[in-house]
């Protein structure tokens, strides 16, 4: 394999773009889109006037160096952390200093719900997981990865790549159609297989009650459709091994299937929720009180059985909602 420096010295811009389509963006970023592309970058830069370099505060060798760096950056998929099979939450203490006394192992594919009153400390737990706390945050918790302590260097390295987050307050703000958006996301992930776009789209449509098309604008999606698309996208395109979901109860989507989808895609899924349907679908639930983990409950068989009635109730409500939406009259239930 040639180093990027050699590549840039020996190949023409056209040849490089052929192999690294992203290289085009580099020239847009530095405002040099009409360079002669049948030359090497060094030759091509000789055709640019000195005034340009002065004006934009750049030099030719700096551009060569930056271009090599750019190609390197996008060659290694540095945004990915792989090989995470489990995390362990080792207890710290609550707000009054009472010890938590737990060591909870969560493996990939597992779903854990987090319950507790607002302000009880749920976001602090999520924050601890995100920064892989090492007994150095206010809660005194330690988070292990694959059962092991994590060094500061490794924490800096995984920063922002570990956790994908989804909450009720999140909206799409880009002015793009669903298709353009999925393509853009796939491109930023260097996804080689284009079928993932269709998979995401179909799966999102499945989860959302009302259908939408590839050409629908993101900003025109209903709350439920947006949430469905976000979940499908997180499941299939995001590489973060951990997913944190914050209150999606009123989203108008098939919640149970949504979280099953994440779990099936080998994610470690944590949901902060008060929704019985979601909480009981989880394998375990963490109860938060006074800033600390009060206890961890494994969903019992009896609870799993009552999940059936909860689903029926939920279905009844959904039917009523649809009847209202369609202008029908509501008749006594049951």
């Amino acid at each position, binding site marked *: 394999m040639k180093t990027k420096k050699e590549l840039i010295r020996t190949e023409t811009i056209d040849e490089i773009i052929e192999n690294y389509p992203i290289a085009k*963006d*580099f020239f*847009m*970023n530095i405002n040099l889109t009409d360079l002669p592309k049948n030359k090497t970058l060094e030759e091509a830069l000789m055709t640019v006037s000195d005034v340009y370099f002065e004006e934009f*505060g750049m030099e030719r060798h700096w551009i060569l160096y930056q271009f090599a*760096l*750019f190609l*390197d*950056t*996008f060659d290694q998929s540095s*945004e990915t952390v792989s090989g995470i099979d489990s995390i362990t939450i080792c207890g710290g203490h609550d707000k009054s200093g009472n010890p938590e006394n737990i060591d909870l192992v969560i493996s990939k594919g597992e779903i854990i719900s987090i319950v507790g009153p607002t302000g009880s400390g749920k*976001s602090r737990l*999520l*924050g601890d997981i*995100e*920064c892989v706390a090492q007994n150095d*945050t*206010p809660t005194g918790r330690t988070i292990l990865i694959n059962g092991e302590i994590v060094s*500061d260097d490794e*924490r*800096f390295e995984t*920063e*922002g790549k570990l956790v*994908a*987050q*989804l*909450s009720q*307050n*999140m*909206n*799409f*703000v*880009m002015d793009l159609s669903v298709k353009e*958006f999925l393509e*853009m*996301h796939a491109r*930023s*992930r260097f996804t080689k297989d284009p079928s993932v776009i269709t998979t995401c789209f179909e799966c999102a449509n499945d989860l959302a009650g009302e259908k939408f098309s590839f050409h629908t604008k993101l900003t025109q999606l209903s709350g439920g459709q*947006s949430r469905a698309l*976000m979940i499908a*996208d*997180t499941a299939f*395109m*995001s590489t973060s091994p951990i997913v944190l979901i914050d209150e999606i109860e009123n989203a108008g989507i098939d919640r149970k299937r949504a979280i099953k989808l994440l779990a099936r895609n080998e994610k470690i899924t944590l949901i902060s929720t008060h929704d019985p349907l979601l909480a009981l679908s989880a394998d375990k639930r963490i109860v938060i009180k006074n800033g600390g983990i009060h206890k961890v409950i494994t969903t019992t068989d009896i609870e799993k059985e009552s999940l059936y009635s909860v689903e029926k109730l939920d279905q009844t409500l959904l039917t009523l909602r649809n009847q209202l939406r369609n202008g029908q009259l509501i008749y006594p239930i049951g």
Partner: protein
Amino acid sequence: MKLITVAGPPSSGKTSVIINVIEHLKLRGLNAGVVKFDCLTSFDQERYSENHIPVEVGFSGKVCPDHFFISNIEEALMWGRGSEFDLLISESAGLCNRCSPHIKDILSICVIDNLSGVNTPRKIGPMLKFADIVVVTKGDIVSQAEREVFKFNIRQVNGKARIISVNGITGQGTFMLSKHFENALDIDTLNDMRLRFTTPASICSYCTGETRIGPAYQMGMMKKMEFKK
């Protein structure tokens, strides 16, 4: 004393981030002060004072904000040392995309927010390009996918920086950021150190107060656009 430069477009969340970072630093027994450089007005001093953070504010007024910054930062450092801070943090609003207060060897932070548009990182310029750490705020209101695309666009212009997502309101993400602040270089003076990028050049009649329009009044260093026929 450590110096950290924090820059970013107006309202991107600089003050919110700095206040949250200082909270963490205080817990570790560190004492930090802030100097805010702004153009015409600022509401930041009250917020810092409310949080018991010593602050000084300077307004560039009719002078280029970058030139103003660089001609006052050494004095700011003296103020910080005199006040016995462990860290001095400078906050400056990048007012044009050509702005950049970053100094070689000094920890340089750029704060931008997810709401500013996906292609914004590709337009910002040296303030982002030469930052060691890019802090991205307001992720709490956009989708995960958009956050990922935004990050990708930051990578496009700055392949080396660490990118840290922070919620300026809850402070989520500032813990790791505060560790970087703590590891910043200790310095006594900035004399003879260098900017990472040249400041915009401006020595024309409009810099010195001219308000009339027309070629007769345009003197000094002027730049003319070329329009196609």
